């Protein structure tokens, strides 16, 4: 029996099947809010603990697959179940997908970050599907009294040819439930994949276009109050006192106003608490609008407790750090100093980029209901496991009593790795002794901090009389962050190579922002590479390929140390050259830029064409070649690539966060510019390398190089190079 998932009532299905006791449960309880008993966990063989996957088969053949990782728009909620379904060998139309809650007993790495969900989940998800299939086969073998290896499966049906018998998975599910979990399972040969590698629509698509409550901000629970916070107006300031608490409490719908200690003395902060501010003010009321009004009326006194940093200060301090060499280099091959002395030509350029906010469309929020007995939390979080640890410390409660459910997220980009807002929600709920939903308004969201750091990098290159690259010196600085990846390209391709990095301590808090560090240095490096190729009088792609050739044939230094595979790198460049017809005569007059980069275990090369319209670039087309191994769902993979390109162009062109005496000068989208429809590329075409390698990162790798391709194309259009992001406000562009 085939049931289409979108017309099925999930809740009643779950209930009735739980009552009937049918179906096979792989090591967990089906009610999403429950954790499996130790008994259930023990039933899993020890060596399988790391490769758990969740699925349930109904007696009607319907399969529910749990998606373990948080969904931030990277579409793992479709892709991860696809991998399980593939090995289970079911019809994708018979699959229902549910978001799994945090469950560290069963799942490993329930985290959205570093483009690693698919890469790190690949084996365990396949095992989960294959294990279940195996158990169904064993059950059928037992019932039919035939050898298991004579039974075949296809799209949810078990068949024994010899005795002409067949049965749907549903019919065998109950018997399969008592089959011993196999010690070993065979995985499919990738060439037999029927689901992996095919376009599958987003499982939440219908809910998204009909406005169903999917997001944390949409949660409405019984007796729930709304809470908002008041943040210090500037970095470097801390809470002193509330001046008009009584007046604000008297406002319509307002329940309470009070300071909160988010991280009291002695609490163990996790890395994921990031720039969470220890002391804030909370406003609690009946509705969001009432809280917003109260927030406006509230007068809070803050006092400076460290330097109130302005953008001019960051600029100066980063510059002076850039000019003072660090004690030790990050990597050194050959003798750069001597090589520059002997060089026939040399070139030096400095690039910079501002702080950026993540600006997820859905602002930070979290639901918490904390009682003496237990803590129940729901909301958008990329790192639920770490949030649980902090909560255990803050609430002084064992993790067993803390339940966290992840909602679909209105964007992540790294921002929701830092779950301080979940802690804030818990502390407010505990104080109110009531369920609350904490809501950040856009201004809170944009000014809280946790920004992409501000960066500067200086490159210097030397060519010999044959225009061969003989020396490369990169030195980078960032606020609270290293910038330079010393073992990435062109390390290993240049005889004399020096990489240096230093960080500037700043009280403006920073965190991972989509493709950390790569998001800036890739574009800078690729723009510089373009100038070096020009100085050498060489075609920009040929120039890069020569370097990869060197790294393939005769790598400099220990090749194991080089953090890239020059063959795959060269592969994407050649692919994009061919697809964009890079050297065609007809394309010679086009303002065209190229860039390539490696990060998150994947390789990306891009060609970008643009025209200048009213002194601003309009991107006509981007060709993007990607080597990320096996592509699980090409439809959404292309979407990710397109999104990364738009994101990268947008931030390099328009966005920045600046500060005056510690105060963020952009607080909402009126002053913080994000790329919009009319600025987006008119066309993006993506090409995946088909190499059968296990999948690698996809959510981030298309972003980093695109700012380089953009800068290089802008140079072809205007004759001027851009060095300082955002390009739209760099003087030479605006004229």
């Amino acid at each position, binding site marked *: 029996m085939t049931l289409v998932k979108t017309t099925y009532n999930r809740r009643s299905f779950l209930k009735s099947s739980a009552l009937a006791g049918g179906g096979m449960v792989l090591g967990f309880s089906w009610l999403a809010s429950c954790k499996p008993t130790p008994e259930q966990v023990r039933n899993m063989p020890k060596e399988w603990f790391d490769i758990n996957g969740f699925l349930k088969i109904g007696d009607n053949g319907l399969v529910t697959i749990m998606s373990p990782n948080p969904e931030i728009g990277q579409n793992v909620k479709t892709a991860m179940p696809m991998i399980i379904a593939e090995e289970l060998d079911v019809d994708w139309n018979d699959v229902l997908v549910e978001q799994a809650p945090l469950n560290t007993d069963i799942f490993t790495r329930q985290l959205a970050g570093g483009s690693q969900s698919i890469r790190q989940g690949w084996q365990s998800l396949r095992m989960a599907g294959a294990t279940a299939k195996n158990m169904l086969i064993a059950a059928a073998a037992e019932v039919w009294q035939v050898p298991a290896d004579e039974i075949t499966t296809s799209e949810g049906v078990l068949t024994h040819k010899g005795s002409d018998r067949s049965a749907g998975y549903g019919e065998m599910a109950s018997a399969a439930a008592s089959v011993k979990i196999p010690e070993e399972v065979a995985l499919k040969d990738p060439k037999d994949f029927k689901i992996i590698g095919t376009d599958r629509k987003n499982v939440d698509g219908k809910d998204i276009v*009909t406005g169903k409550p999917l997001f944390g901000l949409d949660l409405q629970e019984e007796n729930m109050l709304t809470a908002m916070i008041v943040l210090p107006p500037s970095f470097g300031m801390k809470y002193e006192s509330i001046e008009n608490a009584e007046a604000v409490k008297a406002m319509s719908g307002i329940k309470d106003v009070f300071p909160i200690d988010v991280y009291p003395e002695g609490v163990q902060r996790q890395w994921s608490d990031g720039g969470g501010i220890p002391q804030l003010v909370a406003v609690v009321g009946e509705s969001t609008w009432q809280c917003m009004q109260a927030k406006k009326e509230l007068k809070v006194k803050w006092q400076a407790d460290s330097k109130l940093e302005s953008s001019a200060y960051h600029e100066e301090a980063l510059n002076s750090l850039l000019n003072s060499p660090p004690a030790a280099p990050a990597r050194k091959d050959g003798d750069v100093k001597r090589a520059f002395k002997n060089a026939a030509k040399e070139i030096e350029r400095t690039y910079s980029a501002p702080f950026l906010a993540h600006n997820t469309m859905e602002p930070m929020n979290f639901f918490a209901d904390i009682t003496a007995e237990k803590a129940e939390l729901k909301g958008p979080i990329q790192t639920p496991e770490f949030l649980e640890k902090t909560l255990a410390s803050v609430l002084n409660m064992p993790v067993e009593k803390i339940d966290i459910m992840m909602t679909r997220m209105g*964007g992540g980009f790294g921002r929701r790795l830092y779950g301080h807002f979940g802690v804030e929600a818990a502390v407010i709920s505990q104080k109110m002794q009531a369920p609350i939903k904490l809501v950040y308004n856009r201004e809170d969201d944009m000014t809280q901090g946790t920004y992409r750091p501000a960066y500067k990098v200086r490159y210097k290159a030397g060519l010999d009389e044959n225009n061969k690259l003989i020396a490369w010196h990169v030195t980078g600085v960032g606020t609270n962050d290293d910038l330079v990846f010393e073992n990435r390209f062109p390390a290993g391709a240049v005889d004399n190579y020096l990489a240096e990095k230093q960080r500037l301590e700043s009280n403006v808090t920073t965190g991972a922002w989509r493709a950390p560090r790569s998001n800036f240095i890739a574009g800078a490096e690729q723009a510089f590479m373009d100038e070096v190729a020009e100085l050498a009088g060489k075609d920009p792609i040929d120039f890069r390929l020569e370097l990869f050739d060197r790294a393939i044939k005769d790598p400099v230094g220990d090749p194991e140390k080089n953090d890239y595979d020059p063959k795959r790198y060269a592969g994407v460049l050649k692919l994009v050259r061919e697809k964009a017809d890079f050297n065609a005569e007809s394309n010679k007059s086009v303002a065209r830029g190229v860039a390539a980069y490696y990060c998150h275990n994947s390789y990306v090369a891009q060609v970008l064409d643009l025209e200048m319209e009213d002194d601003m670039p309009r991107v006509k087309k981007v060709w993007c070649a990607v080597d990320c191994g096996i592509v699980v769902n090409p439809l959404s993979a292309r979407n990710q690539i397109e999104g990364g390109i738009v994101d990268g162009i947008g931030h390099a062109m328009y966005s920045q966060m600046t500060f005056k005496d510690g105060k963020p000068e952009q607080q909402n989208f009126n002053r913080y510019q994000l790329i919009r429809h009319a600025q987006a590329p008119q066309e993006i075409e993506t090409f995946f390398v088909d190499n059968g390698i296990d999948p690698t990162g996809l959510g981030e790798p298309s972003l980093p190089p695109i700012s380089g391709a953009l800068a290089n194309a802008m140079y072809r259009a205007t004759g001027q190079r851009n060095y300082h992001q955002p390009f739209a406000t760099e003087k030479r562009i605006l004229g």
Partner: protein
Amino acid sequence: MAKFDLKINGKTQSLDVDPTTPLLWVLRDHLNLVGTKYGCGIAQCGACTVHHGDTAVRSCQLTIAAVEKDITTIEGLSENGDHPVQKAWLDEDVYQCGYCQAGQIMNASAFLKSNPNPSDAEIETAMNGNICRCGTYTRIKKAIKNAAAAENA
């Protein structure tokens, strides 16, 4: 507090709220119609777009006291989620996180009503007030063109 009768998605709703409350928060907090999203509160992002009569408006800027016409939200755009624009969105698999898309769809559907056969440039201008942080702009444009073509076929 004041009493209001609003017609939302074909149903009359009686409410007793502060007259300065923006329609956005009436929908979300009082009527549990949370498909309409909050993104900025200052008319910059379009996440809160609904139809006021046939016009796309930003519900974060329209106070409940200023509502004069019937309101349609994403929940009421079609009975079964099969409005041509919704169908086009499903066909193109437009969304990433999905958060901005209700606003995009409401703006696009009102726009196509007034301009059933738009050029690319007209689409860009009409949609420029709707931010998509995930960068699904090329898909949105394609979906709007497909929806227009399907209607004109």
